[in-house]
């Protein structure tokens, strides 16, 4: 199915038309929790882009060179989540050693990322859609960037909104969801561009 799709098509589709957050609802938890300030969102966004790209590569390798030959594909949930958790842990340790500045910028977000459903979701989508190796890299990268774009835009809106009066019962999560809905509408405007299923 993915044979006919060029990698750049997958890349742009993952950012715009099939935005992982706004059309697939993945990564909502940290999205709602963190998207209050633009600075933190940028940090978390970069961490997600990085982890998503690398884990989709690692999981692709594990799936095609370990799980398929051994006929253990039903174990993929366990293997993927362990790879993601282990990878995040290792990266955290390396960053802590190598650069204090980077650790302060990214390190605090890394533990959050293990439980970010978007990361696991990208790996699962990649398996279900049967992407080739190159396509998986671009799918991971594109999804990460798409997520970052969404969370930064959201944080910008929420910072402005701190000054406006929201109905009391709607404050917090409610209004954030309405904004997310409007943003999803806006992103649907891209859907004429290209489509992946």
């Amino acid at each position, binding site marked *: 199915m993915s044979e006919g799709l060029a990698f750049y098509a997958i890349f742009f589709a993952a950012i715009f038309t099939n935005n992982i957050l*706004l*059309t*697939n*609802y*993945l*990564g*909502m*938890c940290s999205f*709602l929790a963190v998207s209050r300030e633009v600075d933190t969102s940028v940090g978390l966004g970069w961490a997600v882009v990085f982890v998503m790209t690398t884990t989709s590569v690692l999981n692709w390798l594990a799936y095609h060179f370990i799980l398929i030959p051994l006929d253990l594909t*039903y*174990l*993929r*949930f*366990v293997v*993927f*989540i*362990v790879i993601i*958790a282990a990878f995040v842990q290792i990266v955290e340790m390396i960053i802590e050693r190598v650069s204090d500045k980077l650790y302060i910028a990214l390190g605090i977000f890394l533990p959050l990322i293990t*439980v*970010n*459903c*978007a*990361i*696991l*979701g990208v790996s*699962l*989508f990649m398996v*279900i859609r049967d992407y080739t190796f190159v396509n998986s890299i671009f799918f991971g990268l594109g999804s990460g960037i798409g997520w970052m774009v969404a969370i930064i835009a959201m944080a910008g809106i929420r910072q402005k909104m701190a000054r406006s009066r929201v*109905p*009391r*019962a*709607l404050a*917090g*999560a*409610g*209004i954030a*969801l*309405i904004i*997310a*809905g*409007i943003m*999803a*509408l806006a992103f*649907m405007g891209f859907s004429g561009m290209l489509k992946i299923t």
Partner: protein
Amino acid sequence: MNNFKAKKVLLEDLGKNNPVFIQVLGICSTLAVTNVLRNTVVMSAGLIFVTALSNLTVSLVRNVMPSRIRMMVETLIIACYVIIVDIVLKAYMPEVSRQLGPYVGLIITNCIIMGRAEAFALSNPPGLSFIDGVASGIGYSYVLLVIAFIRELMGSGSVWGHHVLGDWWTNWSIMVMAPGAFFMLAVFIWIVKGMMFRRQEGSS
């Protein structure tokens, strides 16, 4: 087991402590399947199964588990139950399983399950943890079921795949698409929180 305590746990998870309204947790994976009622029912059943049994298991091993690696152990326990759900769905409901796609696997990263394991099962006996798991699963599911019912009714004029609204009904196609889910959940939270505030004021 203390009967009174069990009842209290059950009621708090359904209302005051409801994971969706109050904590807004775990809406990621399951919001995506609320465009058709049948898929939501299947997904909710799977979620209740996983929450209840993983709570039970975590509670059983809580005294022998080193606390340093407890997150990893919890994740693995949850993943095992999710695999069971996935295999059962593939075997008995291949059509639904195909439609749900990756979202069954994403139950693993659903924060509610992990949250309950951390917050409740680690410090409570197995029986009570099991009830807590069932209760938070149900508290989560009924919100989703209501949303799915409205979305399917308005989006495609049907309930459970049967057409109920006549030809006069124009489908709101936005309801079955992504923004519909966001708006529905927001309105739902709005109504419930508004009612809570009003009741608080009435009692004070």
